[in-house]
């Protein structure tokens, strides 16, 4: 495998975020990751509705068809379940598919192949087959995306053994985690968020990896721990910034990966601050926030200075209209309110 070498080489440097250097947009960072991976390994191929059309998947797959040819970058029939199975089979026989979807909602058509098949094959086969496959999708929000085009379904998959689930927040991580995901010998789901895609950030050239399964501190502070990923964490950071002048500081833990989940960083931070705000782009009930909250409850509830708080979506489908959307989604203000409530809990002895 060419991967191992390229990886060993890259390990020394860039395992954490750089702050100076060349800037790229989030989308460009992803594009560069795909281009590098495809150049490195002829087994990597990219497919999905839009990967070779004028939209090029928000720009993520731009130029790839020209560079690597259409057998390796192709539009698909609209058959998400079938194509997921096809990717699984292709992966079992030497290829490394990167299957891109405009929206995670469309993955719901493929749960049979993801949950009943791809995630289990390595285990069921007693290690004799492996499924190195990346399923990439971008969470939609706004402009009437509505209940069927805005779902952040990472929480639905967190229980499923054998899957890896990645949610990057920065251009640096988007590239490094994409490279790690492609190099990984397991099915890896990457959930992007549309609202992060215009972000600019420092992105080293060449191949580097961000380890799957390892969180990172974005900020260090004392009053609380803010734990989450992706756009939810970005919003919480904005809220935190707005509270800085009140002297509030927090650990901001970007998990980057939801499965495997980095217990160590969660517990380290919460044990220090005694307060946890858990955020996710998905529904608050069940799923990601629930798991993180439960990890705290089963490890160190006694150190909590206040009940934990989770901020995700309410237990409602996403409404389509603009006014309702504003009310539905957490905002900087509601995040700030959650932080303040966490610091001044009502009725806590």
């Amino acid at each position, binding site marked *: 495998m060419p991967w191992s070498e390229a990886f060993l080489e890259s390990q020394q440097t860039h395992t954490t975020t750089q702050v100076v250097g060349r800037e790229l947009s989030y989308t460009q960072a992803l594009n560069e990751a795909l281009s590098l991976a495809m150049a490195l390994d002829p087994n990597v191929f990219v497919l999905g*509705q*839009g990967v070779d*059309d*004028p*939209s090029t998947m928000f720009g993520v797959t731009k130029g790839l068809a020209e560079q690597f040819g259409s057998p390796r970058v*192709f*539009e*698909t*029939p*609209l*058959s*998400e*379940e*079938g194509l997921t199975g096809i990717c699984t089979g292709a992966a079992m026989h030497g290829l490394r598919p990167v299957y891109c979807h405009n929206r995670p*909602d*469309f993955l719901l*058509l493929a749960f049979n192949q993801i949950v009943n098949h791809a995630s289990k094959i390595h285990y069921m086969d007693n290690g004799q087959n492996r499924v190195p496959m990346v399923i990439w999708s971008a969470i939609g929000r*706004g*402009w*009437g*995306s*509505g*209940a*069927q*085009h805005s779902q952040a379904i990472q929480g639905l998959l967190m229980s499923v053994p054998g899957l890896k689930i990645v949610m990057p927040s920065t251009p640096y991580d988007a590239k490094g985690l994409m490279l790690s995901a492609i190099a990984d010998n397991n099915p890896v789901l990457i959930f992007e968020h549309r609202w992060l895609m215009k972000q600019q950030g420092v992105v080293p050239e060449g191949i580097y990896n961000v380890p799957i399964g390892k969180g990172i501190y974005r900020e260090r502070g004392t009053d609380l721990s803010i734990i989450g990923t992706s756009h939810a964490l970005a919003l919480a950071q904005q809220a935190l910034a707005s509270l800085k002048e009140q002297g509030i500081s927090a650990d901001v833990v970007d998990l980057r990966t939801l499965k495997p989940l980095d217990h160590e960083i969660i517990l380290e931070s919460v044990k220090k601050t005694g307060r946890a705000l858990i955020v996710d782009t998905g529904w608050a009930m069940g799923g990601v926030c629930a798991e993180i909250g439960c990890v705290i409850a089963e490890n160190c509830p006694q150190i909590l200075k206040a009940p934990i708080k989770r901020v995700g979506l309410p*237990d*409602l*489908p996403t*409404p*389509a*209209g*603009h*006014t*309702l959307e504003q*009310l*539905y989604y957490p905002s900087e203000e509601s995040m700030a309110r959650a932080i303040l409530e966490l610091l001044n809990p009502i009725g806590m002895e």
Partner: protein
Amino acid sequence: MVINFPYQGSDFEDCGDFVARYEASFLTQMFHSMLRIRRIEEAIESQYHQDQMKTPIHLVIGQEAASVGACSALKKSDILYCGHRTNGAYLAKGGDLKGMLSEFFCRKNGCVGSRGGSMHLLDKSVGMAGSSAIVAGAVPIATGAALSAQLRGDDYVSTVFLGDAATEEGVVWESLNFAALKKLPIVYFCENNFFSVCTPLEERQPLDTPIYKKAAAFGLHSVQVDGSNVLKVYEAVTSAVARARRGDGPSFIEVPVYRWRGHGGAGDDSASGYRDPAEVADWQKHCPVEGYAGFLQREGLLDSQQRAAMEQQISTEIAEAFQHAEQSENPTEEDLYSHVYCN
């Protein structure tokens, strides 16, 4: 100049006999309905850049004959479902224009209270039962509506609009198999406009595998007719509906059509390279609205005065409906929480 998907119909050259068979008022009424849809779509398109309609749009300009031909064959009590490209079906079935525009403007009095947006129009009062933004998602649901008619002995026929790409979803074949098995009263109406977003048919389905022939192999009565010819669409759907009502089971109708605008949003996007603008221009020569207008004129059923009156009336209706929508109220926080569960 590359025309991958040429128009293959005969315009209205072989349609003279329709005039003898149908009331003149009915024939001009279908024209009115098509013209109205065209003008509504144009109005939406022209205002879209103002960013007041905060919703995706999927225009049916170029596909009006399919919407109108199919829906003219349905009774009000017949049920209609469709997908993301909903405007034509909704309007042709008689859906309330104000409710639609209010929905586009995200108002509380939108046809689904600003919860569904443009991809989820419905107006139960006229049998426009629903739509899904998930491609092919409404196909089994419409099939279930037909099952309900059969088991409850209700008289309606169920109909569902689907695109060419929708037929790539396995659930469509599951639905067709079940409908044929149970002889359900349903008509699958497939608008094949050769594209799925910007991906042409040949990148998604093998050559020489016409969709309607697949449906025939699944046991459905299945035909293909010119989707730019409202008369032929009307007749095909009429006979399919009659079969369904007689208890003779489901039909599949494939209509080749062409969408003049981009997949979503305003304007043509051919310049982006996925199709030759010449292909659009070529289809525009066979405009379903003007082609039919010409036919009616030739047959002496439409003169320029009548046409002008229609235009005038439509334009007034549209102006009023936009005004209504723009002036309507936004939903409030309270509205967010209702109807999660049904009591």
